[in-house]
């Protein structure tokens, strides 16, 4: 087996708590499919047959059901405690025993139509330790409920340095980790005099990691996040003097236990074979750079590569804005008809072609649905107008409502005549007639007045 797929679905969705307080993030509906369906279908399309899903106890049942019904993947679901505050690297350490080969880590909030073979080919061809996917960031144009004015550039930027070919990853740092200056080591500049530093990139959180990285994680327990700590650490290690993950690879004395005997012999085999590979590369007339006296890869054993997508869709649904944007474009990713056949749509209603209607919906007469996603079992009564909105499952929208640019969570009820613009209505909430509510977030069941910031 060449690669094992691991889907990280235990994250809390900390940047969109309003949505995720009631529904676990992997089950958030996007185009009426749960969020985790998208990376799983990507893996299935590409040819994976098995997948390890790391998720919380809450979401486990749903995820299992989903895996068994909607995909043909053979699931292996690992539960972690929700409050354990596990980072992605901690999760990998948790499943160390299950991982026997190189691993492909995907986050559950990735929606993309990227050609995965580009990332994996870089990983294979250069015998890389890490290979990841990034994409040019798109501006989100839709107005986000609950936000006043334009989005500030408060999101910390990532600085990504690549070499001339655009494939080798030389430098990776987040603005938060840097004090005032961007510091680039001389050893990097000596080897790669031309470096391109990019800031407008979105990290797709799709990583191909070598098996030895998992062992490295097991030894260094302080690393808890792949994105925040492991990747920058590996990128830095490329140019450090001891550029190998295991310092004591050749010492057989260390692992005298029976359990490790097999891996030990594998190491020996691997190192003997590596000699042959070295011999082949030495005889080859290829070099990845030119201008200095060094051989291919400057003799370094640790290499990190990145594939930057120029075109195509790549979204990480970890903020409200991304969630809304993803809902717009999700219909492009699957071939099911936008309007589910079981929905009951009355004749005199207007349903736009870019809307997605879920199962068992009921849309009454003279209702109008444009550019929206309607969840399963939703009832929309007469003369309701829904534009640019996301309605989740089991919502009841009474007559004459006007909903624009909003997100209505599951089982909410919007009473008649309500006029809602750019709001987010929480789970099972009820919106009464009274005021015109604009740019509001109707709060959680345990009402916290501080959360209501209306602007009239």
């Amino acid at each position, binding site marked *: 087996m060449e690669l*094992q797929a691991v889907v990280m679905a235990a994250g809390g969705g900390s940047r969109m708590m309003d949505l995720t307080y009631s529904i676990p993030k992997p089950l958030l509906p996007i185009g009426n499919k749960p969020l985790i369906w998208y990376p799983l279908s990507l893996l299935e399309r590409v*040819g*994976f047959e098995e997948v390890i899903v790391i998720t919380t106890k809450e979401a486990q049942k749903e995820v299992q059901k989903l895996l068994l019904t909607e995909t043909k993947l053979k699931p292996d679901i690992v539960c972690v405690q929700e409050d354990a505050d596990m980072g992605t690297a901690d999760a990998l350490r948790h499943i160390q025993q299950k991982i026997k080969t190189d691993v492909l880590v995907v986050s559950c909030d990735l929606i993309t139509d990227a050609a995965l*073979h580009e990332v994996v080919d870089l990983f294979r061809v250069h*015998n890389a330790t890490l290979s990841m996917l990034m994409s040019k960031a798109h501006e989100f144009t839709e107005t986000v409920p609950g936000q006043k004015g334009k989005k500030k550039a408060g999101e910390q930027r990532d600085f990504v340095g690549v070499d001339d070919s655009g494939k080798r990853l030389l430098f990776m740092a987040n603005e938060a980790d840097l004090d005032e200056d961007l510091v680039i080591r001389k050893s990097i500049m000596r080897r790669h005099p031309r470096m391109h530093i990019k800031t407008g990139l979105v990290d797709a959180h799709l990583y191909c990691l070598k098996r030895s990285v998992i062992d490295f994680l097991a030894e260094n327990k302080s690393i808890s996040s792949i994105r925040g700590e492991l990747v920058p650490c590996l990128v830095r290690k490329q140019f450090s003097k001891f550029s190998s993950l295991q310092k004591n690879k050749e010492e057989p004395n260390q692992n005298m236990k029976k359990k490790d005997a097999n891996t030990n012999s594998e190491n020996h085999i691997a190192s003997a074979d590596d000699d*042959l590979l070295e011999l082949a590369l030495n005889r080859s*007339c*290829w*070099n990845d750079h030119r201008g200095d006296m060094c051989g291919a890869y400057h003799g370094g054993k640790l290499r990190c590569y990145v594939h930057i997508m120029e075109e195509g869709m790549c979204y990480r649904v970890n903020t409200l804005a991304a969630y809304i944007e993803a809902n717009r474009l999700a219909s492009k990713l699957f071939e099911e008809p936008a309007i589910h056949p079981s929905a009951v749509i009355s004749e005199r209603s207007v349903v736009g072609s870019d809307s997605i209607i879920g199962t068992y919906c009921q849309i009454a007469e003279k209702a109008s649905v444009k550019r929206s996603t309607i969840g399963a079992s939703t009832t929309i009564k007469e003369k309701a107008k829904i534009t640019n909105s996301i309605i989740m499952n089991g919502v009841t929208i009474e007559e004459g409502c006007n909903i624009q640019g909003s997100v209505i969570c599951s089982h909410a009820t919007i009473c008649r005549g309500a006029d809602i613009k750019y709001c987010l209505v929480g789970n099972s909430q009820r919106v009464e007639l009274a005021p015109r509510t604009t740019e509001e977030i109707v709060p959680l069941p345990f009402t916290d007045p501080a959360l209501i910031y209306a602007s009239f």
Partner: protein
Amino acid sequence: MAAAAEAKELNDNSDETDSKKNEILRARNDGMELSKEEKQRLRKEKKQQKKNKKDDKGQPDNGMGKKDKKPLTAPSAQVTTQVQQPVVTQKALSASPVSEAPAPVDRPAKSKAELRAERRARQEADRASKQAKKGESAAQPSVGKTKAPPNELQPVVKRLPEHIQADDPEVVKKLAKKLEKQQIPVRLDYGYKVSLFSHLHQYSRKAPLTQQMSIPSTVIHPSIVRLGLQYSQGIVAGSNARSIALLHAFKQVIRDYSTPPNEELSRDLVNKLKPYISFLNQCRPLSASMGNAIKFIKKEISNIPSQCKEEEAKSRLQASIDNYIEVKINLAAEAITKFAIEKISNDDVILVYGCSSLVNHILCDAFKKERKFRVVVVDSRPRLEGREALRRLVKMGIHCTYVLISAVSYILPEVSKVFLGAHALLANGYVMSRVGTSQIALVAKAYNVPVLVCCETYKFCERVQTDSFVSNELDDPDELTVTRNGRTQLKHWQSFHMLGLLNLVYDVTPPDFVDLVITELGMIPCTSVPVVLRVKNVDQ
């Protein structure tokens, strides 16, 4: 009775050409008759079974080795059969059934006639059972099917191997069917091909074969997928490097292999390797050295006795692969270096072309042995491999000059010798090497500069070629476009339908331009290559 039979045998043998050989072998055999007999019998039985399979296709029973016929092996395979025919018919005359591996050995116990009768009976029985099977099922093993048409016409028409007929739709269809059976995707040709070379495949580096395969590759072993990618992207380039990398990948395949129940390792492993070889061929056409390495491995695998345990068989194979690399590549390089250094004198100016691992090794060793010389490195686009050779030589401390091939006639008056590497040496003495080599040899001849070709014997190939058109390789045409100052002039070359970009990889140099070939067997003239080939075959 036994004595009479033996006497008859002796009489038969005395009329034949290899009687002396038989006597020697019998003397050797006397001490170890029984066990060797059994081994030989087993081997012969296996070969009988394989031959019987081919007999059904109406092949002449001239005792040809099975491996030479399979079209999946090196492109030289088909032509091999042609050239070997005269050699083999001679052997057939001596009435010994075995053509390869052990030299024809007579069994002293049974008489020849009895053996022949036994064999015929067995063949009849097998043929009858095969006919019955044929009647039952229409589908036959793919190898049989694709082998049938070329083999039928073998004695009459010389045909090119399948994959060098890219413009013949039938051949393309046949190839596609074969690949489909092996579950390998077909790589599509890219761009407009110049008409003289339209029979060759032209692939794009940006469209790797892995695009159409599942990502955790299940059909093809991961190390073979990696190797294929490295070939197609040019990371492993150069005849020696490709062979070593291929053998390394095969070692990993063998290590991860486990015999399925009711199968023999010697047969099953060879069948497992076939789709891998097709895959590698799709990524980049196999080189002559790779073809010879594959032939060697297949032979080693089929020679594993059936009672050998799996672990022992695997370790034996690994050891034999290591031995092959050590002897044929490393030690050969040492031997060639020793011979070549004799030819390098002080104050020589040596011209090299491109990056040949062997020539670089020779020059570095000569420098270490304190010879005083300087080197002129000639380079050509689009690969610009000379830069890598330049780097390695300068790193050693050798004084180098670097020119492009367009300046070769300017620089040649200064040069005292030309050292060239080879991709393969053909059976008629032609040298197949990187495109541009024949030009260098031509200009050197015009200036009366000696041209020495360095080549290991495992790159000798039974193919015969007199021009660079019939069998060549086309690289990605986009590699010819150059980007300077952010502008690529030929960026839209595909939109001009009368414009074709031709990126040839190899060319052949006639033996008149080559003064000496340095191999590990010694320094031979170019025309002695067929002799070496013949000697090699007899040895095996």
